[in-house]
């Protein structure tokens, strides 16, 4: 509920956007540095809920694209977000922001790791964090699922993807290659039957 600076309805040019490459870099640095056990929940929270740079629908669309293509999902989302406003320089700034600072942290932790890896307290803390991190990603999926209201039949594909990857532990690439084309074809036929409109 942001009280101030709510743009009037139907004023797309008033949508918030990153002001500069520096802002893009810093926002992605900040969200990546908070991403213990996964950056995705933070990307959704910061880009959609906090900054309003993307609608939830746009975020799902970028994520869907990023998952079907090679490369890490969140890195692919960073590339698309950066490219959207600043072209290839934005893509580099967003991806660089995502990687640079966490890279320093990871390399520092590697030095420390040998000394603490067998400490039972550290091990238990990491397990507790893992349980929460998994829950945060599940919660993000539920939040994103609200974009699919009125498209209930399509969630069959989501359920199949979950069954294949999470429950049957089939390799993700096979699930994507099997389900993706079928879902796109089904959507294409459904759109055409509805009268050729590019329904959103």
């Amino acid at each position, binding site marked *: 509920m942001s009280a101030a600076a709510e743009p009037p309805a139907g004023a797309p040019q008033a949508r918030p956007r990153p002001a500069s490459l520096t802002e893009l870099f810093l926002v992605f640095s900040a969200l990546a540095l908070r991403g213990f056990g996964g950056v995705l929940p933070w990307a959704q929270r910061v880009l959609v809920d906090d900054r309003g740079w993307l609608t939830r629908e746009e975020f799902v669309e970028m994520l869907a694209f990023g998952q079907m293509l090679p490369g890490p999902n969140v890195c692919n989302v960073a590339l698309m977000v950066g490219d959207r406003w600043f072209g290839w320089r934005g*893509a580099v700034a967003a991806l660089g922001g995502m990687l640079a600072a966490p890279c320093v942290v990871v390399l520092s932790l590697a030095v420390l790791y040998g000394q603490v890896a067998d400490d039972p307290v550290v091990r238990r803390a990491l397990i507790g964090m893992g349980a929460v991190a998994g829950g945060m*990603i599940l919660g993000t999926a539920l939040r994103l699922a609200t974009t699919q209201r009125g498209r209930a039949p399509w969630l069959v594909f989501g359920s199949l993807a979950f069954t294949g990857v999470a429950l049957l532990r089939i390799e993700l690439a096979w699930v994507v290659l099997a389900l993706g084309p079928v879902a796109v074809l089904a959507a294409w036929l459904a759109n055409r039957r509805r009268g050729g409109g590019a329904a959103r």
Partner: protein
Amino acid sequence: MSGAGLLDLFVHFAALSLLAIGGALAVSPEMHRYLVGERGWLSTPQFNDAIAIAQAAPGPNILFVTLLGWQVGGMAGALAATVGQLLPSSLVTLACWRWKSAREDAPLVAAIRLGLSPIAIGLTASAGWVIASGASGTDPALWAMTAVAALVVWRTRVNLLWLVGAGALLGALGVVG
């Protein structure tokens, strides 16, 4: 590390880049075969540590590739592995994204949007499930924490760092796990 070794590392990871659908962890078995088995540059514990550290640390998990490169060849190795792993997939992603963005109203793009979004949500839920079940196993208290975290993220805008901190603390104190 020699220049030829660095080039070999770069080329090998660049070749794997386009196979890494869903992230670099998908091709980690092949990385293990190359770095540990074929070249003997790393031991299996070193390899597994790199993945464990990148998952515990903040930031994208792809940084395990950086860490592998670092262990093999210091700063130059880290750069060769990371750039090799990310450059080809990034170029493909940008090219496809621009192709799509130029044709927002084309029937195929509309179908991609409608058809792939639910799969993306299913795959995201899968990632959460796999991480949670790896950490929680059969412990009901840990699963309860997973459920609370999911509920909070789904329904509220509470600062997520509190959740991570609570998980680490309850785990460290032995309240759960």
